[in-house]
C-alpha cells in the first residue's frame, strides 16, 4: 500500500554513465534524495557536477547508446520509473513530470507557433479536441501572465522576448497539471527583474496546483528565495542535504562553506574572496578517497584513503565528510552587513571623462535602405573615472551598457559627444595617435573563448600586444615576458604552447587578463567578464582583477548585471536604463539609499541571502525597445511611483549628495 507520507519522488542511488573516448564517465554516481509532494528541492552545484544529468535521468531522457542509467531506482508515485516501458514512460513525460530548460531562446521549436506547441502536449496527454485544447492553451498563457494570449498564441517564438519564451515553456510544462516540475536553471539566462517575475510565477502556480519542483541551479541566492530542501552536488554525488532553514545557518560541508565564502558582497570589499583551487575531478577517473580532497582546505590523512559516506549530523541534515565537527558557515558571511565605505573620491582630473556621449544606430527600411529612425543605444551620457577607480555600469540587457563600453574605447562609431582620456581628446585625434593610445585602453569580454583566436597558441595571443607595441626585442624575450605574465595571472607558464580550447572558462578569462596586462594599460573595460563563470572561479577572477588594480593603479569600467559583484569590486556605480544613466553614486549611496525607482526595483529583484521579509518590488514587463522609447521618463510604463508629469518630459538630474544623483521627478 502506498502511504500518504511517502515522498512524491524518491531517487535512490542513481548512477548515470556516458561512454567517452577517455573511458566511462560517471556523471552521476550514486545520488539519493526525496521530494515531498508540493515542495521545492534545489539541486545546487557548479557546472559539471551532474545536476542536469540527474534531471534528464529522472525524465529518462539520457541519449542512448552514448549514455545509460546504471542504477538504481527512481520511485515516482510508488512506481520505479527505470522499470517502465518506453511507452509508459512517455505517458508520464510532459504529463505527470514535466521539465523546463535553461535556454528559453532555443527551447522552443522555431517553425511552430507557440499555440501549436502548447496544444500538442495537451492533445497528447489529455485527449482533448483541437478546439478544447486551443481554449486551454489560451487559458495557460493567461495563467503565465502573457498579455493578449489570444493574439500571442498564433505567434512564433522569435517574436517573443526571452522572458516571454520562458513563460511559454512554463505554460507547456504545466498544461497537464504535472505532479513534478523539473526546472533546469530556468532563470539563469534572464535579467534579474525577469528572473524575479519567473520565480514568483513558479511559486504562485506551485501553491495553486500543489506541484512539486526540482530546481536545478548554481545560484545559492535563488535557492534561498524559493527552496524548501537543498541538496548540494559535487562530482556526481550529493555531499550535503538539509532543509532550507538549517542549510542557510548550519551548512558545514567544506565545499558548501567555501561556495558561500566565495560569493562576492559588499562587506568583503576589503578582503580577498575565498576561492576553491583546482578543478572538479574528471568523471572518468574519480579519486579513491573524498572527491573534494585535492581542493579541500580542511583535508587530512583519512580523506585521501577513504570515501566519506553521507551521514546524518542532525535530524534532516546530512553531509559526506569525515570531519567530526565541520565548521558551519558563519551567518555573517551569508548576510550582507552594510558597513564598509566605498571609495568615493573623484580625483581632481579624471583619467577617463565622457561628456554627452551619443551612439545612435540608423534604422534602415525599404529597398533603398533609407533611414527611417534611430536606435538611441547611448543617449547623452556623462561619466568620469579616476585613476585606480572602478566604475560599475549596471542595468538590464538592452539598456545600452555594452555599446557604451565599446563607444568609450572608440571601437564603434560615435554619433556625438566628447571623450577625454588622460586629458587627450580622443574624438579628435588622428588614427595613428589613437592606435598608440589603444595600448592604454583595453577591453575584456564575457566570452573569453569567442575573443581568443582558436588557431593561435597562448604565447602568440598574449604576445600580439607586445609586438604591436614594440615591447620585447625577439621571440625569446617576448616568450619570457609572456611566461611572467602567465605566472602573474595564475596560469602555468608551462602551458605557453597550448591552444585556447585546452583551457577551462576561468583559465581563458585569465588569458584575456594576461593579454591586456601585456601592454600595461591604464584603463580596462570589463564587459560581463565573470557572467559565464562558476562562483568559485568568479571569485578567483575578481581577486585577480582587484590585486592587479592595486598594483598597477588600473581603472576599470565594469559592465555587469550582477549586483553583488558590483558591491564587491566597484567604487562608483552608474545605473543605466534605455540609453541614459538614471542614477549614480558611490556603492554605499546607491545600494543603501537608492533614489531612482528603477534602482530600487533592481535591488529588490536581485535574490539575496539573509534578507527575509524584504519588501519585494516587482517590476512589470521588460525593457521596451530602444527604437521607440516611451515618451517622457523612459521608465514610466513600469514605474510603481509614476506621476502624470512623468509621461511628458524626461526628468533632469537631481543631486542627492555631492556624489549621488538621480534623474527622477520625485526629487524635484
Amino acid at each position: 500500500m502506498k502511504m500518504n507520507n511517502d515522498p512524491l519522488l524518491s531517487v535512490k542511488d542513481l548512477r548515470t554513465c556516458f561512454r567517452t573516448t577517455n573511458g566511462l564517465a560517471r556523471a552521476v554516481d550514486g545520488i539519493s534524495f526525496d521530494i515531498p509532494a508540493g515542495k521545492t528541492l534545489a539541486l545546487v552545484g557548479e557546472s559539471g557536477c551532474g545536476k542536469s544529468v540527474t534531471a534528464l535521468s529522472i525524465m529518462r531522457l539520457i541519449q542512448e547508446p552514448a549514455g545509460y542509467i546504471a542504477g538504481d531506482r527512481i520511485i515516482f508515485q510508488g512506481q520505479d520509473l527505470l522499470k517502465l516501458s518506453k511507452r509508459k514512460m512517455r505517458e508520464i513525460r510532459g504529463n505527470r513530470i514535466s521539465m523546463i530548460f535553461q535556454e528559453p531562446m532555443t527551447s522552443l521549436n522555431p517553425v511552430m507557433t507557440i499555440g501549436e506547441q502548447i496544444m500538442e502536449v495537451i492533445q497528447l496527454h489529455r485527449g482533448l479536441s483541437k478546439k478544447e485544447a486551443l481554449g486551454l492553451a489560451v487559458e495557460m498563457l493567461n495563467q503565465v501572465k502573457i498579455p493578449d494570449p489570444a493574439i500571442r498564441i498564433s505567434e512564433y517564438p522569435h517574436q517573443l522576448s526571452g522572458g516571454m519564451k520562458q513563460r511559454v515553456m512554463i505554460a507547456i510544462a504545466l498544461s497537464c497539471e504535472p505532479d513534478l516540475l523539473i526546472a533546469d536553471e530556468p532563470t539563469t539566462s534572464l535579467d534579474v527583474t525577469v528572473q524575479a517575475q519567473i520565480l514568483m510565477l513558479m511559486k504562485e502556480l506551485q501553491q495553486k496546483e500543489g506541484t512539486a519542483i526540482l530546481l536545478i541551479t548554481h545560484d545559492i541566492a535563488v535557492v534561498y528565495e524559493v527552496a524548501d530542501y537543498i541538496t548540494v552536488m559535487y562530482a556526481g554525488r550529493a555531499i550535503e542535504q538539509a532543509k532550507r532553514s538549517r542549510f542557510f545557518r548550519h551548512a558545514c560541508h567544506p565545499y558548501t562553506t567555501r561556495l558561500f565564502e566565495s560569493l562576492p558582497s559588499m562587506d568583503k570589499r576589503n578582503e580577498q574572496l575565498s576561492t576553491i583551487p583546482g578543478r572538479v575531478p574528471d568523471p572518468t577517473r574519480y579519486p579513491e578517497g573524498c572527491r573534494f580532497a585535492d581542493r579541500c582546505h580542511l583535508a587530512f590523512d583519512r580523506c585521501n584513503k577513504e570515501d566519506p559516506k553521507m551521514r546524518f549530523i542532525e535530524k534532516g541534515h546530512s553531509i559526506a565528510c569525515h570531519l567530526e565537527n565541520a565548521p558551519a558557515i558563519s551567518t555573517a558571511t551569508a548576510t550582507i552587513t552594510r558597513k564598509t565605505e566605498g571609495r568615493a573620491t573623484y580625483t581632481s582630473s579624471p583619467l577617463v571623462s565622457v561628456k554627452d556621449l551619443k551612439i545612435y544606430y540608423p534604422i534602415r527600411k525599404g529597398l533603398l535602405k533609407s533611414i527611417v529612425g534611430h536606435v538611441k543605444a547611448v543617449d547623452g551620457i556623462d561619466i568620469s573615472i579616476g585613476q585606480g577607480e572602478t566604475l560599475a555600469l549596471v542595468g538590464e540587457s538592452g539598456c545600452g551598457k555594452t555599446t557604451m563600453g565599446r563607444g568609450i574605447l572608440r571601437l564603434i562609431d560615435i554619433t556625438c559627444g566628447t571623450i577625454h582620456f588622460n586629458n587627450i581628446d580622443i574624438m579628435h585625434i588622428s588614427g595613428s595617435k589613437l592606435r598608440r593610445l589603444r595600448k592604454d585602453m583595453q577591453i575584456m569580454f564575457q566570452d573569453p573563448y569567442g575573443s581568443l583566436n582558436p588557431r593561435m597558441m597562448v604565447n602568440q595571443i598574449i604576445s600580439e600586444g607586445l609586438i604591436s607595441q614594440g615591447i620585447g626585442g625577439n621571440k625569446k624575450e617576448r616568450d619570457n615576458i609572456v611566461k611572467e605574465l602567465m605566472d602573474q595571472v595564475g596560469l602555468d607558464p608551462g602551458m605557453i604552447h597550448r591552444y585556447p580550447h585546452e583551457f577551462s572558462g576561468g583559465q581563458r578569462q585569465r588569458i584575456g587578463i594576461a593579454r591586456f596586462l601585456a601592454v600595461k594599460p591604464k584603463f580596462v573595460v570589463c564587459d560581463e567578464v565573470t557572467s559565464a563563470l562558476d562562483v568559485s572561479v568568479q571569485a578567483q577572477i575578481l581577486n585577480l582583477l582587484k590585486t592587479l588594480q592595486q598594483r598597477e593603479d588600473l581603472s576599470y569600467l565594469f559592465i555587469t548585471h550582477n549586483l553583488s559583484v558590483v558591491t564587491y569590486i566597484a567604487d562608483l556605480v552608474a545605473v543605466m536604463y534605455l540609453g541614459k544613466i538614471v542614477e549614480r553614486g558611490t556603492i554605499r549611496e546607491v545600494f543603501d539609499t537608492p533614489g531612482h525607482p528603477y534602482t530600487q526595483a533592481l535591488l529588490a529583484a536581485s535574490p539575496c541571502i539573509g534578507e527575509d521579509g524584504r519588501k519585494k518590488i516587482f517590476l512589470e514587463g521588460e525593457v521596451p525597445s530602444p527604437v521607440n522609447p516611451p515618451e517622457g521618463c523612459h521608465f514610466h510604463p513600469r514605474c510603481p511611483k509614476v506621476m502624470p508629469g512623468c509621461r511628458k518630459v524626461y526628468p533632469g538630474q537631481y543631486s542627492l549628495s555631492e556624489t549621488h544623483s538621480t534623474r527622477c521627478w520625485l526629487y524635484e
Partner: protein
Amino acid sequence: MRRYIIKRGVLLIPVIMGVVTFVFLLIHLIPGDPVDMMLGETAQQADREMLRTRLGLNDPIHLQYYKFIKGIVRGDLGDSIHYNRPVLEIIIDRFPATLELTLGAIVIAILISIPVGIIAAARQYSIFDNSSMLLALLGISMPNFWLGPLLIIVFSIKLGWLPVSGMGGLTYLILPSVTLGTSMAAILSRMTRSSLLEVIRKDYITTARAKGLSELVIMVKHALTNALLPIVTIIGLQFGALLSGSIITEMIFSWPGIGRLTIQAIITRDYPLVQGCVLFIALCYVMVNLLTDLLYVFIDPRIRLSE
C-alpha cells in the same frame, strides 16, 4: 516577406541578362564562321549568303544583340534550320517529356532519400546507417551513362520487366527516372541525415522529448520541418545537375525531350535551335532556384514574418 520576395526577384534580372548575353555570344564564340560550320566548307556562296541574311549575321553586332533580345521578349527565338519551324514551338513540343522525366526523378529521389535520411539519423552509426550511407556514396559516384545501360540490361533485357526505351505509359518512365534520380537520391539522403543530426541536438528537440512525444512524431513533426531548409536548398541546386543529367539519360533511353533535342541540334549544327535549348534550360534552372527561395518563405516563419 514582401521585401524578401521582391529582393529575390530583382536579383534575378542580372542573372537572366547574363544568360541571354551568353547564349547570344555562343554563336560568335565558336571558332570559325558559323555558316561554314552549318553548311560545310563545300556549300555554295549563294546559299551561304542566304543563311547569313536569314540569321542576321550581316548586321553589326549590337543590332544583332538588340534583335535577339527583342525576339526573346516577343517569344520569338528564330526558326530551326533543320526542322524549319519556330524554335519555341519545337521546345514547347518537347518540354512535357523532359518535365515528366525530371519530376519522376525528383519524386523517386525524395521518396527514397527522406525516409532513409530519417532512419539513418534516428539510428546513427547503426548497420542501417552505415550501409545506406555507403550505398549513397556509391550512388553519387555512379555516372548516368553507366547506370542507365546497366538497368536496361538487368530489367529490360534479362528480366524483361520493363521496356528498353522510348516514351509511353508509366512503365516507360521507371528506368529513366531511376537513372536520373539516383545520384540526387544519394545526395539528398546524406543531406537529410546530416541536417537532421544537427537539428536533433537542438534544445527544442529535448523539449519535444520532455513532452512525451514518440520518436517518430519528434523526427517528422519537429526535426524534419526544421531540417527542411538545407534539404530544399539542395533540391534546388541539384535541379541543375538533373537538367544536365537528363541530356545523357534522354539519349540512352531515346526519350523525346529537350535533352535529346539539344544533342540533335548540336549534331545537325542547328544553331538557332541550340541557342533556344540552352536558353530554355538555363531559364528553367534560374526559375527553379527562385522557386526554392520562395519555398523558404513557407518553411521558415522567421523569413515569412520579417519585413
